[in-house]
């Protein structure tokens, strides 16, 4: 008996470097298995990330350091010092393995802007640890986004979204009306502004601790069903507002500590 064995071939490319400010890195990654959608996973320690879906079949990663101070420049803090000296370090690493592009970008002093062009079905899990926003346009796979010190904006989304913005709002425009997985959007200090097609089917779970909730959809909101007791000494009624849209479906949680929640019904012409 002849047995054919297909060995997985991992195409791995790595690049890293430390460059002077204002140079631009660009690198292209092919999927190991182009017939299957891939994933992009990574973080920027200081800066923002923009992801754009396109009709190509490779991931293109571009890093644009913000222009730093001119050589020799110092920032005066006091008449006689100490003076703050500039730093230009930048460390970018990325590789592809089994349809997953993994990247990291560290620049302790100067914020960077990381740009990704990805095939539309790609799933995205990216994080900005400080100093920048996250933007995603036209990507149809699941999106998992964390911005520690910035806002998040998403447009043309077809898949579910998990987004956490610690210091900014979240704006998300969805083109899909049903999701196969839950969506969850949280913000610490900012508004949540989402837009769905008119035929959205979902269970909404909403809470704006110090804000208000607005909806273009005609909803019949109801309180959360659970009474909670802690150590028998207090009673706590769930503060979420629940609402079923059309036939219902996967849960969409929207929660902000300080800001409003606005749910738009898109016209379908955007």
């Amino acid at each position, binding site marked *: 008996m002849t047995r054919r064995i297909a060995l997985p071939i991992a195409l791995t490319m790595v690049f890293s470097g430390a460059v002077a400010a204002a140079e631009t890195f660009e690198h292209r990654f092919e999927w190991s298995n182009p017939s299957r959608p891939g994933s992009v996973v990574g973080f920027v320690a200081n800066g923002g990330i923009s992801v754009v879906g396109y009709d190509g079949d490779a991931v293109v990663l571009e890093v644009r350091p913000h222009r730093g101070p001119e050589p020799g420049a110092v920032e005066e803090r006091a008449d006689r010092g100490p003076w703050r000296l500039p730093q230009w370090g930048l460390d970018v690493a990325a590789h592809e393995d089994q349809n997953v592009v993994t990247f990291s970008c560290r620049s302790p002093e100067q914020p960077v802007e990381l740009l990704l062009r990805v095939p539309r079905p790609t799933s995205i*899990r990216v994080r900005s640890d400080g100093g920048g926003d996250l933007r995603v346009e036209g990507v149809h796979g699941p999106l998992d986004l*964390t911005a520690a010190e910035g806002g998040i904006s998403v447009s043309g989304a077809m898949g579910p979204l998990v987004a*956490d913005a610690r210091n900014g709002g979240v704006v998300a425009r969805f083109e899909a009306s049903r999701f196969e997985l839950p969506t969850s959007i*949280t913000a610490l200090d900012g508004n949540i502004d989402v837009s769905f097609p008119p035929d959205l089917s979902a269970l909404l779970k909403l809470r704006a601790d110090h804000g208000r909730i607005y909806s273009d959809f005609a909803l019949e909101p109801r309180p959360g069903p*659970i009474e909670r007791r802690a150590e028998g000494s207090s009673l706590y009624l769930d503060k979420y507002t629940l609402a079923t849209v059309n036939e219902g479906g996967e849960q969409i949680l929207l929660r902000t500590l300080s800001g409003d929640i606005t749910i738009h019904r898109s016209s379908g012409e955007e």
Partner: protein
Amino acid sequence: MGCERNLDRLLSSLLGELDGEDARRFERHLAACAPCRLERDRMLGIWERLGTELPAAPDRAALDARFERMVEAYAAGVRTSARVPARMARVRRAFQVAAALAVGLALGVAAHRPAPDVPAIADLTAEIRALRQELLTTSLQLDSTFGRLRAVQHAQEMEVLDPAARRALLDALRHDPSVSVRLAALDALARFADDPTVVAGLRRARGRESAPVVRDSIAEILGETDDI
């Protein structure tokens, strides 16, 4: 992705816990997904046979023969089935174990007691419930944030959460990298805020929580908010 999500629904369906829109969506998924349909039929067959073939006056030899046939049928099914996702394969194996346990239990009961075997079915139901809780703890280890979130949301709907499942949720509350998963784990645990173990776990989690949205929610459930 859809198949992973529907595995829980498959088990819920067998337990008769699926209704309304969930049931309709599950049926729609089955209509479009041949591997899930095959799996449903296979499990449903075993389930129904367990319910109908256990005799009131057991014939040990016949039961042995049926058990052998079921094992054979499973083996043949495993050999000929199409490739299925790894997690589905794990569920199938777990279900096989549960089914084998139930048949074994039924055989044992039949050998020593002539009473009807309704308790065996009840025990099997308990086994399946335990299996679902095991699935929860396994799913919380998934790399996919969406997979973990889905698992925790499913835990919110479970009537019973055993101590191991509660510990798994507390662990997710303390260590999961996603704020959304931690928040969902907290919601699943809130019903058990009269359990001293859960209260202690919530206090530990609050101490190390970096996201204010989760930290404030823990404080609310503990009744320890500062903004009264």
